[in-house]
């Protein structure tokens, strides 16, 4: 698929680019392409969430941090052979693992067998909600969604604790000021 090849090209761009602003813009493009790929895979809820969150909030937060830190990436002083080897080795192991997956898109895959026919058949009868993803998310698996909302709440509280209040002026002779505001 053409979209997936475009994604691979954008990723190589992110690895090679040193200007951090360019990296953030390329990450936004990556998010948009990922949302398009997800629509082709019939995952419409996931695509909408990925587009809104990845190309919206994520890009805004990265740009805000760039504004706070104002730097560009330095060139690497040593060649990175060990990480490359580790990454390629992990990739080869995973490729060997996915070799036994059934080919893409067959309807008699094992994961369509256990609980999903019941969800698809009974969703309207038991909850009167045609969108199966919403009914599973909020009703059949509502406990996970409670946990997820708590995670968002915790992240918000954490960031407010770290960043609330004005930044103090740093003096030149003091190396660190990590204390509480």
């Amino acid at each position: 698929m053409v979209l997936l090849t475009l994604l691979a090209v954008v990723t190589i761009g992110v690895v090679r680019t040193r200007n951090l602003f360019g990296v953030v813009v390329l990450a936004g493009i990556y998010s948009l392409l990922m949302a398009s790929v997800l629509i082709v895979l019939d995952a419409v809820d996931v695509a909408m969430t990925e587009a809104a969150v990845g190309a919206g909030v994520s890009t805004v937060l990265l740009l805000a941090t760039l504004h706070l830190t104002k730097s560009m990436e330095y060139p690497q002083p040593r060649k990175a052979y060990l990480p490359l080897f580790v990454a390629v080795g992990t990739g080869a192991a995973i490729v060997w693992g996915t070799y036994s997956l059934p080919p893409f898109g067959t309807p008699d895959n094992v994961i369509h067998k256990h609980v999903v026919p019941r969800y698809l058949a009974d969703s309207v009868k038991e909850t009167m909600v045609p969108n199966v993803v919403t009914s599973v998310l909020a009703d059949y698996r509502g406990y996970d969604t409670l946990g997820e909302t708590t995670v968002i709440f915790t992240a918000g509280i954490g960031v407010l604790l770290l960043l609330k209040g004005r930044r103090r002026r740093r003096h030149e002779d003091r190396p660190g000021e990590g204390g509480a505001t």
Partner: protein
Amino acid sequence: MKLDLILRIGVKFLLPFVLLFALYVQFHGELGPGGGFQAGVITAGMVILYAIIFGVDAAKRIAPQRMVEFMVPLGVLIFAGTGVAGLLLGKNFLDYSVLAHDAPHGRELGIFLVELGVLITVSGTMTALFYAFSERGR
């Protein structure tokens, strides 16, 4: 500055439609794609867009910082409260079927309340994050 003027008038015209779209996505999450998370992020995006064009102080007039920080735990409270309501009425935690006169209507009402709670928390958190990051850089 001419370019600035085009952006300002265009954004002023566009923002009510963004809010309307966010509410549409929230309430039609049962009939089509959508739901609480998407609507919350779109609402936060609307406030962030307003803050980028007109300044953070103007955005704080339409979405005050106290209210936004109050919204963050309020959504979790609504969600957990719906679960506990099921517990108090005699059945399991997060069992919505006792909230209305019969089981399917009860579950639909439960899903509606839960998505509302998620919308409030997600939009409040994203806006509070943006306010925190922009305040630090003053």
